[in-house]
């Protein structure tokens, strides 16, 4: 039994969620092959070969794979599929984009966002924004899976000595093209990679007040997040949103400031190791999941926290 893991990378390095997928693949068992499809991606392929637990790296290096367009990537993966019992990737915006296309072309189901492996054909996954956990079994010959980024401990970046094999398949559906990207420049760690996150909610009152969190974040080396309420109110950009409709995070420390704790927010952060809540409403639901709760006005507490760090 061999497993194909489709790597997420920027042509230079392999992104963290891919190592989480490899960890999930190890629980299924079997040879693990990584597919690196990109343009001028030899550095990423080399990085992939050193990931612990990977036995082979397949590299498809061509301009048609440069921006991970779903149509081209799916056709490539389908060509490779017959050698594998499982095809897996991370539940990221990229993985969610191309993977269902792969499943449909293979005429098999996809099991999205698995959070545990019960057996090679049985998995647990969250439904209803994480308010219920379903155990599901697939009868399909090939299991197509996406893996929740916070559900498994990533394998080590180093330690592997996989063979790198070039594959000469150029699949161009020629129905879509990439025009541009507007990457948000971050001076701080990315939300999904940060070990500490401080998030603000509607209680922040406006976007300017997020400066209070920035100062604390800089001292802690933390990423800054926000609740959907803060995003919808226009305080901060959508890519800062933590929650079921935003980013799913599980840092060592999550500090929720002025966040009431709506179900959809909790679904995105309740797997954090330690949760701190600062809120002036002592009945706020966020306190029901917080390890340390402080009932206080955030405009007093956050500057004080800043001064004590």
């Amino acid at each position, binding site marked *: 039994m061999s497993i194909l893991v489709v790597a997420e990378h920027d042509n230079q390095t392999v992104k963290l969620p891919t190592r989480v997928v490899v960890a999930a693949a190890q629980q299924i068992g079997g040879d693990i092959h990584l597919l690196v499809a990109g343009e001028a991606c030899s550095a990423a392929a080399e990085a992939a070969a050193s990931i612990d637990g990977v036995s082979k790296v397949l590299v498809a290096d061509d301009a048609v794979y440069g*921006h991970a367009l*779903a*149509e081209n990537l799916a056709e490539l993966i389908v060509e490779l599929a017959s050698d594998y019992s499982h095809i897996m990737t991370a539940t*990221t*915006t990229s993985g*969610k*984009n191309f993977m*269902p*296309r*792969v*499943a*449909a*072309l293979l*005429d098999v*189901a*996809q*099991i*999205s*966002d698995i959070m545990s492996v019960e057996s090679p054909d049985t998995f647990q996954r*969250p*439904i*209803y*924004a*994480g*308010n*219920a*956990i379903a*155990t*599901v*079994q*697939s*009868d399909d010959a090939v299991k197509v899976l996406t893996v929740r980024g916070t559900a498994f401990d990533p394998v080590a970046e180093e330690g592997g000595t996989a063979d790198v094999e070039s594959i000469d398949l150029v699949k161009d559906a020629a*129905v*879509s093209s*990439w*025009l*541009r*990207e507007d*990457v*948000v420049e971050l001076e701080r760690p990315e939300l999904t990679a940060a070990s500490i996150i401080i998030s603000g909610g509607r209680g922040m009152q406006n976007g300017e007040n997020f400066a209070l969190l920035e100062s604390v974040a800089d001292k802690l080396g933390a990423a800054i997040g926000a609740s959907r309420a803060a995003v919808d109110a226009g305080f901060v950009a*959508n*890519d800062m949103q933590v929650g*079921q*409709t935003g*980013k799913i995070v599980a840092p*060592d*420390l999550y500090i929720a400031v002025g966040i009431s704790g709506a179900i959809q927010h909790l679904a995105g952060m*309740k797997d954090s190791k*330690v*949760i701190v809540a600062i809120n002036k409403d002592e009945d706020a639901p966020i*306190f*029901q*999941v917080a*390890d*340390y*709760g*402080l009932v206080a006005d955030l405009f007093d*507490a956050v500057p*004080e926290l800043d001064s*004590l760090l």
Partner: protein
Amino acid sequence: MKILVTAKRVVDYNVSIRVLNDQTGVDLNNVKMSVNPFDEIAIEEAVRLKEAGKAEEVIVLSVGAGNCQEQIRTALALGADRGILVETDEDMQPLGIAKVMKAIVDKEQPKLIITGKQAIDGDNSQTGQMLAALAGISQATFASEIDLDDDFATVTREVDGGLETIKVDLPAVVTTDLRLNEPRYASLPNIMKAKKKQVDVYTPSELEVDVTPRVRTLKVEPPAERKAGIKVESVEELVDKLRNEAKVIS
């Protein structure tokens, strides 16, 4: 051009769901059902494109039991022109729904299909992409902006780390993200008018589509409860706990 949109019947997003004691699923008895919020955004976008003169007809599709008529009527009240219900009591999974949609796409030949990026019950985020694959057409998922031309669409997508803009040839499938638009409310006159609009009903077998489920749900459980911790009295105590008890800051 014709635009096809979807209206999945799901538990309203304001309802706090309850897992059944026998672990077979969640309790749907006497629970408020609504149009999937991401589908509402799809319907709104299609109606706006029609109002802007870029589309002639908006068709709304729902797949499921007979009571999905309610969600079709809601979409018709929001401005869709006509409805299609593919009626079945089968447990409909993304691949089966995508196959049904493919049959309707073959019949109606829409140039644009707009659907929610995911439904808030199964949270699968698969159906739109699967339809695009089965129909052999392009896709633009997680859209926050759609600029529609005669033969192509320029779509801005919400991706991890920022935004990406792609150009897709038509016909195409676009799935909606939250920021695409803010759906309107239906007015009373439009709700009355919607009752007179045409809704065609098919079954999967009439469309010659096999919708047999591929995935079996063995059980559904509530998530592990996270226990509430302690309340601290001061910021000083909080910092002390984080440093010396939880040891998560230095």
